């Protein structure tokens, strides 16, 4: 968990917001994933790995396609463990694992977090788990030494913000828009108000995700008060289109510098 907080602090000391790329494990193929992830992590503060799920109801079309493609190649929990372990050996950026609850339950709650912690993961994000629905999940993750990152949204009431923060360690993941993952041209104006409402209740860093697509959106998030930005769909789309995701990441970095 400290590695996660430290990554934010290091970025801040350098006058930057933390930059957090996301890729779906096994996309476009297990080996290509490792190559791209290593290059992206090189220029990132933290790195988020998605364990693909058959029914990703929090994801837009780009990450849905990536998940489907990874699953078609047989990328399941055990293979993701292998990929995470390999990636952890090649990068200094702390790794975060994003997945849905069912693969975690199927593997076994304690064992899942212990095995991923042993493979080098530092924090976990479960978009279909409001923390108070399954306090035992966050407990098991914490017991394995993982940061427990939960999502907050533009619809979150002050009461929900307080509840979610009670279970959160590492950082707060703020969803910029009401919607699913996907690159957008601009972020809603109210983002600053949302971040301020969260920061009134916590000293944890606040990262913004969903909709970060390049320099402009990253800069908008930074000006709205974010301590970090997550970029996923825009990187995967670049890969789909045969472009270099690193140039997208660099644009995000530039925007997040402001």
């Amino acid at each position, binding site marked *: 968990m400290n590695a996660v907080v430290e990554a934010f602090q290091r970025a801040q000391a350098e006058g930057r917001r933390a930059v957090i790329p996301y890729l779906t494990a096994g996309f476009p193929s297990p080996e290509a994933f490792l190559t791209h992830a290593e290059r992206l992590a090189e220029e990132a503060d933290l790195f988020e790995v998605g364990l693909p*799920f*058959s*029914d*990703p*109801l*929090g994801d*837009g*079309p780009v990450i*849905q396609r990536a998940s*489907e493609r990874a*699953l078609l190649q047989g990328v*399941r*929990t*055990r293979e993701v463990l292998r990929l995470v372990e390999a990636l952890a050996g090649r990068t200094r950026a702390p790794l975060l694992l994003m997945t*849905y*609850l*069912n*693969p*975690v*339950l*199927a*593997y076994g709650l304690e064992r899942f977090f212990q095995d991923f912690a042993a493979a080098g993961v530092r924090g976990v994000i479960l*978009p*279909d*788990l*409001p923390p108070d*629905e*399954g306090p035992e999940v966050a407990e098991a993750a914490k017991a394995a030494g993982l940061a427990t990152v*939960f*999502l*907050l*949204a*533009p*619809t*979150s*009431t002050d009461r*929900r913000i307080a509840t*979610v923060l009670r279970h959160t360690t590492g950082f707060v993941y703020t*969803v910029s828009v*009401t*919607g*699913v993952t996907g690159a957008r041209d601009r972020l809603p104006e109210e983002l600053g108000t949302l971040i301020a409402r969260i920061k009134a209740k916590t000293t944890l860093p606040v990262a913004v995700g969903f909709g970060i697509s390049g320099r402009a959106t990253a800069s908008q998030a930074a000006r709205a008060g974010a301590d970090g930005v997550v970029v996923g769909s825009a990187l995967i789309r670049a890969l789909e289109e045969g472009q270099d995701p690193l140039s997208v990441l660099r644009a995000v970095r530039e925007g997040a510098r402001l």
Partner: protein
Amino acid sequence: MEGFRFLDFPVPDERGRFGPYGGRYVPETLIPALEELAAAFEEARRDPEFLATYRAYLRDYAGRPTPLYYAERLTEELGGAKVYLKREDLAHTGAHKINNTLGQALLARRMGKKRVIAETGAGQHGVSVATVAAMFGLEAVIYMGEEDVRRQALNVFRMELLGAKVVPVASGTRTLKDATNEAIRDWVTNVRTTFYILGSVVGPHPYPRMVRDFQSVIGQEIRAQLLEKEGREVPDAVIACVGGGSNAIGAFAPFAYAEPRPRLIGVEAAGEGLKTGRHAASIAAGKRGVLHGSYMYLLQDEDGQIAPAHSVSAGLDYPGVGPEHSYLADEGLAEYAAVTDEEALSGFRLLAKTEGIIPALESAHAVAYAAKVVPAMPRDAVVVINVSGRGDKDVAEVKRILEERA
């Protein structure tokens, strides 16, 4: 008959739990909307005016109460217990779905939402939503897997005729499970303006409870009608098919938590056979897990990836079963069986030939199981089969299957 009432059932608790099942496993964005929905439903179910309005639409629009019909020739044919049919096939739009969509549409109107969305498999729930949306003047968007759009072209046209927009879903298995994902994604995006009319007793709290409460009109009517016809409110068995589980829970709930309790038999789709892996029997052959916001029995592989369901009947073609059924099964308050596509087709023909009633292929599963157990029951026993829908929608498909074999 005094009409439908909101009954108090012992489950779920205020967090939407049926024992360990149920809950609210959805993106945080939706939590405030679900809290709001639960509060609005709570308020509505205590409001005499809401109740009066809902009853009036059930009577004058849906055509309730639906008959409880003594199936004399089927009884003779089976040679055991006396068989009654609860005729949900005679409700408007031809299935029990209207009980739920009327209730939720009234709630949407009460909450000031002008746009409704829904998922549909075969198209029965979609048609029902399009119907009430037309009647209440609401904008309706229906998500339907590409595979189902192709298989159920006529229902797509029906929905469009009723003014709804049908959006084909190309992700995953391109069926009901994926249409549900897409409806949830729409709701996450448009949550401030949109009411999600979920079609079965699945999904995040309060849906399993709310849909159960609306559908419980089926069981409430059975009690009253049986009292009239047989001098007893409680039969010896109630048999209903189980997809997500809404028609079954509607028939079961008014019996499940009271004494004396009849045998409550839910019939899942065994598809090509439980051993083939091509079925939709979540209780008989699934494991517990989380899908679409709820902890329940699910078809899944050992890595927790959801497995595709299969059934000749599109309405049962869903890889999960509602949290209340999961609970009733564990507690032994209801029993669950499964019948194959083949057996369901026999049930389909049996009811057509003996009673002049062509049931939906879904309901044919209940008929087929009744044909197995009724002969062994005493003649003074009384069995109620819930005929959840009519079979017009399936006639072409059954013709195709039978011709393929000939």
